[in-house]
């Protein structure tokens, strides 16, 4: 059996599902739900099958020439599978949550259609075999998420969506020029572990430095590196499942994943260090980590606090790859998964608080622990994980980052990590304390009575992601854990 179509199928499953959802229209709810879940399950099966192929060294590759010498390449390798597995699992869970969440709202066909296309582009980003393919799906992701951010149609949503577009399209224009420049210098190359630009001479190093900065700007917009982050808090007006997916998997992670590809598979860690670009990236990441945490502390709206927390946490990934070395890179890349699991849990919880009780601000959280024990428990677990309490997933990431930084002599990273941990604690612990310790208020802001189905559809996914996030931390040493997986990938970069 020929398997080269598999990577394409991974993208097409969600794309076709999205188009059919548009065609089904608003009223055919059952068909839409079945299609959503069916496509998500098919995708999981495909991921499992692909993993098997990759493990046995038969990784398929799909190639289509868009222009002479310029190929669209989709393929599975260990790194792309890490990201596709994360997306496929979280997509399934988020779909269940979103179906329950949007039970009573309008324009569901539009929502789920773009939701699926968004996942399709994430798959494309994950499986992209060269920077050109990455760029194509990166743009598609912008297109697919824009209607999701603007979904509610309120004034704030439209303004948020406009800001989002300005940042992402501006970033992608810079990205495109950098890409053209790079291709002009080096031609179209596929991603190779350890980089592909070795034979470019010293004379071109200034070019390479400028190109690197341009590409980092293009990806940094989505990864919300300071000062390119302001769209993210504004995009919080989107419905909770969108925020969850945007923060945990799709947009922000696409940017971070792109940075990983850029450093490890295009330039290669050695060349990046030779060009001095690792310092630049590390400083940007460190500044973002601290700035994001400080800003999070100042927010009173739960979702905005979570948003700034994302700004801060995603930069751990950039920090890890910028510091370099096996340990730190592992710590950064494994955070791709860990942060996704924890942050999606937090956003699910925030969504439940807001829809069920109308709780949106931090001072309304009092006594939630008694009213919604499961959700609050999930929030607590994810929050503690973010702080980095052992043996949670967040601790694993931070431990590897710290130990890796010491191993390569980057001592300055340690104070950054400590400061960030303290700030994380400062912005999560008061919330957790309020929920469990403070008495229940007389009445909630906007209580809504949900059916058992709806409650289940909201709470079960939340608890599931919380459990998975704990398990990834507890069993980090297991050979199938994300950590072991990432270790396997990273050892290829540093032979």
């Amino acid at each position, binding site marked *: 059996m020929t398997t080269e179509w598999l990577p394409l199928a991974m993208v097409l499953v969600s794309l076709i599902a999205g188009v059919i959802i548009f065609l089904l229209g608003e009223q055919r709810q059952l068909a839409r739900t079945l299609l959503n879940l069916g496509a998500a399950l098919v995708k999981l099966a495909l991921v499992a099958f692909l993993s098997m192929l990759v493990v046995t060294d038969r990784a398929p590759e799909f190639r289509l020439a868009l222009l002479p010498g310029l190929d669209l390449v989709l393929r599975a390798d260990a790194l792309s599978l890490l990201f596709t597995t994360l997306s496929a699992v979280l997509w399934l869970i988020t779909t269940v949550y979103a179906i329950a969440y949007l039970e009573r709202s309008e324009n569901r066909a539009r929502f789920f259609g773009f939701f699926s296309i968004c996942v399709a582009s994430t798959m494309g980003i994950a499986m992209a075999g060269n920077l050109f393919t990455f760029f194509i799906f990166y743009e598609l992701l912008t297109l697919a998420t824009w209607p999701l951010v*603007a979904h509610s*149609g309120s004034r704030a949503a439209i303004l948020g969506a406009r800001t989002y577009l300005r940042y992402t399209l501006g970033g992608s224009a810079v990205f495109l020029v950098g890409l053209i420049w790079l291709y002009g210098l080096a031609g179209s190359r596929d991603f190779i572990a350890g980089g592909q630009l070795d034979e470019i001479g010293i004379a071109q190093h200034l070019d390479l430095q400028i190109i690197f900065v341009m590409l980092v700007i293009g990806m940094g917009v989505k990864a919300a590196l300071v000062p390119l982050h302001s769209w993210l808090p504004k995009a919080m007006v989107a419905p909770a499942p969108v925020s969850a997916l945007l923060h945990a998997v799709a947009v922000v992670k696409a940017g971070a994943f792109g940075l990983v590809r850029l450093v490890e598979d295009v330039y290669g860690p050695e060349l990046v260090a030779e060009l001095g670009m690792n310092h630049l990236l590390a400083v940007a990441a460190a500044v973002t980590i601290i700035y994001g945490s400080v800003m999070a502390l100042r927010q009173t709206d739960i979702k905005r606090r979570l948003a700034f927390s994302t700004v801060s946490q995603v930069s751990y990934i950039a920090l890890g790859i910028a510091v370099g070395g096996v340990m730190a890179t592992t710590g950064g890349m494994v955070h791709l998964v860990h942060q996704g699991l924890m942050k999606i849990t937090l956003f699910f919880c925030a969504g439940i608080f807001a829809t069920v009780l109308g709780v949106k601000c931090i001072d309304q959280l009092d006594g939630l622990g008694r009213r919604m024990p499961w959700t609050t428990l999930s929030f607590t677990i994810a929050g503690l994980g973010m702080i980095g309490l052992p043996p949670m997933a967040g601790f694993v990431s931070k431990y590897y980052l710290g130990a890796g930084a010491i191993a390569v002599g980057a001592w300055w990273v340690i104070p950054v990590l400590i400061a960030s941990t303290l700030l994380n604690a400062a912005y999560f612990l008061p919330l957790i304390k309020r929920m469990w310790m403070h008495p229940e208020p007389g009445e909630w802001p906007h209580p809504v009575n949900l059916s058992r189905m709806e409650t289940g559809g909201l709470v079960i996914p939340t608890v599931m992601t919380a459990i998975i996030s704990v398990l990834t931390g507890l069993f980090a040493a297991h050979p199938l854990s994300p950590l072991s997986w990432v270790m396997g990938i990273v050892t290829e970069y540093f032979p």
Partner: protein
Amino acid sequence: MIAELLAGLVFIPLGATLLVLLLPRQARGYLCFTAVLALPLCLMPLTQAVWADGEITLALAEFTPPLGIVWRLDGLALIMLWLTAIVAVPVSLHALTSFPPGEQTGRGFWPLWLMLLAGINALFLSADLFNLYVTLEMITLAGVAMLGIGGNALALKAAMRYLLLGLLASLLYLLAVGLIYGQTGALDIYLVGERLETDRLAATALVLMITGLLVKSAIFPMHVWLPAAHGNAPGPVSAILSGLVVKVSLYMLIRIWFWMAGDWELPAAATALGLLGAGAILYGSLAALIQPRLKMVIAYSTVAQLGYVMLLFPLASINAFHAASYQLLAHGLAKAAMFLAAANILWSIGTDRLHALTDLNRKLPVDLFALALAAVSIMGLPPSGGFLAKWLLLEAAWQQGAWGWLILISIGSLLSAAYLFRVIALTCFHPERRHVPTRWQSPPSSASIAALVLALLAIAAGFTSAPILGLIDDSLPPGGIWP
């Protein structure tokens, strides 16, 4: 056989023009649509022939130049003919319902449309300066007449302005043809290219010719007639004018510059043409950003998008040639799709004022989808024909270290995103303006499908570059192009 097929491209629509009014009402639709469908059928074997043996030349009545007239079919001409045929089929499908052939408006539309098609096909086949003049005149007159079909006062005035400027431009062109003939005694472009001396007289002729063609192609700052004409034309006529008619004179400009004056060294003039393009991109986009009506936005977008083609002159490399041809193709498809979708929106709601259009995603999902897909191509976002054109153009600019043009292209695509996203945001997400419009009727499904097909083709053009660029490579101009 080849000669008959070439003749078919021109004489099938021309014959149908004459026949259509003689037939009984019920049969007219079939005749018209069959005549249009015949065009791609004629093109298929011709494409094979060009593929196999390269350029086809046909000396009419077996007279050869300088006295006789020759038709030439090379890769570039073939691509333009394909664009015409591919746009013509969905547009005709749309016109079957928007201008029913049996009714009064259809009696005006169909003969003119078929005549226009004959003119366009003849122009792409011609390699004779005077023949080009005659066919261009035929196209202009048919186009102007089509503008006036609806009888809308704004459209009539726009038609008159278009006609006056068009005739002025034709006169400039004709004068240049006379001067060139006086010097070379030839009219065939290739022959003129060989014989033309680079003296003051020839330079004057070239300037006159280029000016005339710039007016016809509505290149900034000679674009003044275009927005009102394209923005007020009835139904599918806007799609025809914006998708095909402006391309025709631009094509002539490219032919004359690179084929007739190919070995002239004119860097300053080339830069000047490029600067006009830059003006078009910036001015057209900014003007599109503030238009209150959908069709005017699309019309100004045409002004801007044509500017990209003008960058071919200063860049003048194979990549730039690829880019310009791809831009002509992708823009033709996407713009026709947009105007058809806009025509459906206008027809069903009764206005195309952006502030009156709300909730289109629920009322007219197919048309909106077509509009959005076409917008993706116009903005140059992947995957689409417009993206490939932009990529090639950026690559061409990079290769020559032309950072100014490179930045211009980037800014232009950001601006196009700005005005097109504005349209989509205004038409879909606006809860505060959810009032029921005064009139509402659902457009015929074939009209919506026509728009959608064109938009899908514009996206599909993002995947079909290999054969198209292959054809262009076989028909690069004889001189004056950098590798």
